[in-house]
């Protein structure tokens, strides 16, 4: 069984402020490692507002965190990680899949093995590697690598994606640069449209596999191979 085998445990934390840190350790059930908090046998964590909560859990644990301003750090390997925040920074290092929502907090993801969904108003989104990506931002930059399938909506702010295998990538922006880099000996069919911005398609003239669609109003689109 992989580190992301059938998850049997879950942790749920709701704390308005303070900090939340969740790490994987050699434990059979989630436990409080540090901080003024308690955890019941369902993984429900109770902590006073403003507490700094440090939790250790088995690999593959599903994580739910709700906060207003707490900084949240999740190391891995974890299962499904679902975090909502208003202003707090969200950092997830290694998980099976992630659903992360914030208004102004920055979102940083290392690896999401299966899928990463992120929604942000002004907080930037950085994903090192996720084969499937679904991001909505209002005014924020998006950077993501290891992409096979992606859907990105951004009103303003640059988008930079690195696609690593043929799939379906769809980027829609109103302004800001869109840069898509294709890694490997392949190139997607491109459908690039800019109402008033410029388009540069630098992909090699080879057989096409997969699809890349970009729509922007005033942004500049650049597609390149590496």
């Amino acid at each position, binding site marked *: 069984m992989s580190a992301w085998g059938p998850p049997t445990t879950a942790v749920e934390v709701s704390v308005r402020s303070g900090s939340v840190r969740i790490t994987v350790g050699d434990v059979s059930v989630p436990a409080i490692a540090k901080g003024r908090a308690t955890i019941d046998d369902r993984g429900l964590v109770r902590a006073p507002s403003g507490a700094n909560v440090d939790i250790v859990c088995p690999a593959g644990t599903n994580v739910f965190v709700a906060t207003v301003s707490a900084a949240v750090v999740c190391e891995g390997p974890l299962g499904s990680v679902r975090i909502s925040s208003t202003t707090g920074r969200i950092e997830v290092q290694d998980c099976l899949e992630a659903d992360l929502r914030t208004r102004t907090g920055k979102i940083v993801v290392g690896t999401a093995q299966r899928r990463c969904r992120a929604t942000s108003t002004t907080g930037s989104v950085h994903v090192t590697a996720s084969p499937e990506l679904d991001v909505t931002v209002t005014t924020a930059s998006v950077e993501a690598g290891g992409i096979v399938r992606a859907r990105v*909506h951004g009103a303003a702010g640059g988008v930079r994606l690195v696609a690593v295998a043929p799939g379906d990538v769809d980027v829609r922006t109103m302004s800001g640069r869109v840069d898509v880099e294709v890694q490997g000996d392949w190139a997607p069919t491109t459908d690039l449209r800019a109402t008033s911005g410029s388009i540069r398609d630098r992909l090699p003239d080879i057989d096409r596999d997969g699809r890349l669609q970009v729509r922007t109003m005033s942004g500049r689109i650049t597609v390149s191979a590496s």
Partner: protein
Amino acid sequence: MSGEVSAAFVFTDLAGFTAFTAERGDAAALALVERFEREVMAVLPPTARVVKQLGDGFFLCYADVPSALASVAALMARCAAVADSDAPLWVRTGVHSGTALARGDDLLGHDVNVASRVTDMAGAGETLVSAEAKAASGVPAAFEPVGPVFLKGIEEPVRLFRLVPERIPATVG
């Protein structure tokens, strides 16, 4: 009209509308809202109504959650099909069920406020629902958990779910 109403409350608006207006101007923004309004009206069943409209947002009231979800799924599909760079119908929607008090044609109450706040958490092309709406949907398998979230003005975290439209049976609604 007055008295208590038990219903499904839906708020829907356009992600990125402020940026679109700044980028393309008021006339284009007005045209976009009118396009969105046509799509909203096209999916509204006879038992539902537009309670009010503010800017790019619509407050809709449905007789029950199944009809609301069927309508919302149809709206999302229609808008996704026609969305392009000139008409970015990046629709986001929140659904909650409960009660409200009527004041003329308007509806007021905590559950209405919750529905509005749920919408704030949704991304483009996404429908989020409360636990109450999920429970009343009759299709519990049509949702993925989002988890607890703190909604503005509400003390306790609220558990939200993401609608997966393709999991709604065609007969619902």
